């Protein structure tokens, strides 16, 4: 993303400005809460209590966060390559098909720990495949990837409805979903693990795929910052002309980046389909693909930022659900507003407070380091 403004130290760029943007987003959300006649402060307290106050709530928070780590990483990888993947929702949906393929066919034969790697591979492959066509069209035919990935979300939704009311539905059933997976197609919950520490997760669907998500976050960090491919992806995102001049194949990079992105989005299905519902149902991603955009922007594209950002959104999802019990005026749709505000202030308006903060910083610096005129000049 272009930065037509003066360069600032890293802690301002990656710490202060995102924080200010986030605070403003939440302040505006607070105004909405105020507008519907509830106390924003009380809402925040209730939300925090719902998300972190007891073990089961915390389990739900982490369950949602797992979804958002996958989709946030997906959006972030594409961002590094200068590509905007809005298609995470569709890729996750199709990824579910990959998970279901493994769980339905091998669920009764293999144990879960053998099915998990297969499901990871297939969900990644299905998501990657769904991202392949828009990527190829962008690379070779110049079709705008934002538009094609949006279109592919809708096509995925239609395709999945078609499959779920058709071939995937068991005979005699009315609900548009597959049959429940056999035991081998069900990922174990982390209830037992938490009980060792004396916490009761209750019905929280937190399962082993959170470890897959964290491993993915680490691998993406390795990929982007420690490998040749990652360097190429970042070059492409920073300056496609430089990438071309350095002899990198733009087509290959766009396709590979988008397929990694789509694959990560597809892996979100592990958590929701194999870890919680044990069947493939209509619209299971429930907007997680879109939350990924907010998470990636808030985490500034770095796994170390994405994981906390995903937990924050997990908290909003879980806390928001609890909040709706105590404050009927505030339903879960409040989260959609917050999500939009975070995307607005941390993404589109990221430059709004920059000149002000920059000027304030220069002023403070000038005051504290009176004689150091040279360093001020250098900072420009």
């Amino acid at each position, binding site marked *: *993303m*272009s930065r*037509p403004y003066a360069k600032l130290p890293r802690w301002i760029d990656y710490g202060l400005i995102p924080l200010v943007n986030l605070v403003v987003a939440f302040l505006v959300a607070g105004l*909405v809460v105020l*507008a*519907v*006649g509830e106390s924003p402060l009380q809402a925040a307290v209730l939300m925090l209590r719902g998300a972190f106050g007891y073990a089961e709530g915390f389990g739900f928070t982490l369950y949602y966060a797992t979804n958002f780590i996958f989709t946030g990483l997906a959006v972030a990888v594409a961002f590094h390559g200068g590509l*905007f993947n*809005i298609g995470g929702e569709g890729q996750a949906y199709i990824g579910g098909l990959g998970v279901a393929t493994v769980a339905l066919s091998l669920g009764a034969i293999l144990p879960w720990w053998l099915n998990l790697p297969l499901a990871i591979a297939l969900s990644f492959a299905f998501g990657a495949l769904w991202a392949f*066509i*828009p990527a190829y*069209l962008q690379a070779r*035919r*110049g*079709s*705008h990837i*934002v*538009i*094609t990935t*949006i*279109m*592919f979300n*809708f*096509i995925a939704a*239609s*395709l999945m*409805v*078609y499959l779920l009311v*058709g071939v995937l539905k068991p005979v005699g059933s009315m609900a548009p979903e597959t049959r429940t997976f056999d035991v081998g197609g069900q990922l174990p919950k982390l209830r037992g693990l938490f009980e060792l520490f004396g916490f009761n997760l209750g019905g929280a669907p937190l399962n082993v795929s959170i470890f897959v998500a964290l491993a993915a976050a680490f691998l993406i960090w390795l990929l982007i910052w420690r490998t040749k491919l990652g360097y190429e992806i970042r070059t492409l995102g920073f300056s496609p002309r430089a990438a071309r001049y350095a002899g990198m194949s733009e087509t290959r990079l766009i396709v590979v980046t988008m397929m990694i992105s789509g694959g990560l989005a597809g892996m979100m299905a592990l958590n929701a389909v194999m870890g919680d519902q044990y069947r493939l149902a209509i619209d299971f991603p429930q907007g997680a693909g*879109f939350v990924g*955009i907010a998470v990636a*922007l808030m985490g500034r594209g770095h796994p170390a930022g994405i994981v906390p950002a995903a937990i924050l959104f997990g908290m909003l999802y879980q806390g928001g659900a609890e909040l709706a019990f105590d404050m009927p*005026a*505030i*339903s879960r*749709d*409040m*989260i*959609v*507003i*917050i*999500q*939009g*505000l975070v*995307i*607005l202030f941390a*993404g*589109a*308006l*990221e*430059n*709004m407070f920059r000149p002000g903060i920059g000027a304030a910083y220069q002023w403070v610096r000038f005051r504290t380091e009176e004689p150091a005129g040279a360093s001020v000049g250098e900072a420009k």
Partner: protein
Amino acid sequence: MMDLSSLLDLIDSTIRLSTPLLFAALAGLYSERSGIFDISLEGKMLIAAFASASAAAVWGSVMLGLCVGILASVGFSLIHGVASITYRGNQIVSGVAINFIAAGLTIILGQSWFGQGGRTPSLFGGGRFTAVDLPGAEAVRDVPVLGPIYSGILSGQTPLVYVAFLMVPLTWWILFRTRFGLRLRAVGENPAAVDTAGISVTWLRYRAVIICGVLCGFAGAYLATAQAAGFTRDMTAGKGYIALAALIFANWKPVPVMFACLLFGFLDAISIRVGGVELPVIGQISVQFVSALPYILTVILLAGFVGKATPPKAGGVPYVKER
């Protein structure tokens, strides 16, 4: 085989279903021709639908509803403008944000104001746009062929339908026959040249974005106060994106936009009717395939296999004046 009356019925519903698409696609046309990509047509339609239905329900006047709807939509347009013109933010990101804010806000406010699960109270009487009977519609009804076309299709639509279709020649005239239109197109292709000529790029783009808001306001008001009798949760249901698809399909030109919207409206109209119909050779048509067709067609078009999409050159790029 289809008889005349069901054919007329199909054409009639095609027109009704194309109208919101047409408003929204023309809205996007102004914005994108000026170099501001706008994927927030969906969100602006939604907030306008909600605002117009709320105002019409409270004050009982559909015209007031329309005005409030337009105001709400323009307000969201200005957010997009501030983000993408003044602060040179990413236009796609800003559009995504607006879509989410609109989706959440309409339900939270609707629930808080009316307490009906996000719906607004049903509109009746003066709270809705009603059909206009063109002069002589009754008299010619029995004339073969032309009679039913005049009285069944041309007459008996709500006023907004006529406004939408009149906007097509008007938009063409504004874009290609006025000084404002020339500058608007220029700023989307080469803003530096416009700037050199001493014309404000910022103000031109803001005007384009405001026009976009006004037209999205019409689109939303049509959905909530003409097509339906009140706002329902998520009532745009992707129409903003279909309008975007129509805009691309029509290569950012006003008259083709109308045909693209009619085509997508027609697909929408037949998707309800063809479910389970057996056709020779093809076999059974699935509803899902027909409803996905606008998106599939747009992707095929974007891929450049049928025609070629040429977006405005400066689209999506914030203008930085040389300093």
